[in-house]
């Protein structure tokens, strides 16, 4: 079974600075998808960025970018020019690309990293 690990329960960053959140995963599959979700105090889960494992190019969404290291099974999230609104829980998630009636078995979430942004 796949597992997702986020080794940093809490992180903090100064406003306008850059922070990197770590995520590692364990899988025997070669094709899969990886995601970062943000959960602000409102508790609404928001998709931040996603990465297809077959793509070598790292995904980027505005101030958010990932460092995807497939061989190391690492998927870190970099937030540039941090803003107060970036303060939230961040969850790393894994999704197998295999088609299956058991879709629910194919999403695995990490335990989360709580990010604080200091003014």
């Amino acid at each position: 079974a796949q597992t997702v690990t986020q080794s940093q329960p809490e992180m903090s960053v100064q406003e306008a600075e850059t922070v990197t959140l770590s995520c590692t995963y364990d899988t025997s599959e070669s094709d899969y998808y990886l995601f970062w979700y943000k959960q602000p105090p409102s508790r609404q889960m928001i998709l931040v960025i996603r990465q297809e494992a077959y793509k070598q190019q790292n995904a980027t969404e505005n101030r958010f970018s990932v460092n995807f290291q497939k061989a190391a099974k690492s998927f870190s999230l970099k937030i540039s020019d941090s803003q107060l609104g970036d303060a939230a829980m961040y969850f790393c998630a894994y999704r197998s690309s295999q088609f299956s009636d058991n879709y629910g078995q194919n999403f695995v979430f990490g335990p989360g990293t709580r990010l604080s942004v200091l003014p």
Partner: protein
Amino acid sequence: SQTIHQWPATLVQPVGSPLSLECTVEGTSNPNLYWYRQAAGRGLQLLFYSVGIGQISSEVPQNLSASRPQDRQFILSSKKLLLSDSGFYLCAWSIDSGMVQFFGPGTRLTVL
């Protein structure tokens, strides 16, 4: 555009009482639907998922149950709540073979 609704937003129930949480999706057809529970300061635990009307799969044995009476409606129920059922319940949906999940606003349940 697609939207997902959950209600109620908050709920306080006594131990032993029944539960019914509702989730509806608009703007899409035949979505995959999911129920997650998030304990305070913890990650997401998948409870149930459904790939179609009347098709429910359970990930964790518990006193909760789920039903999908309509294509875009997903209901989480319990006949008798336990203290351990307290938490934040999130409904999610996906299409495109389930590549991305989108989440509802959640329901905060407190069992006293």
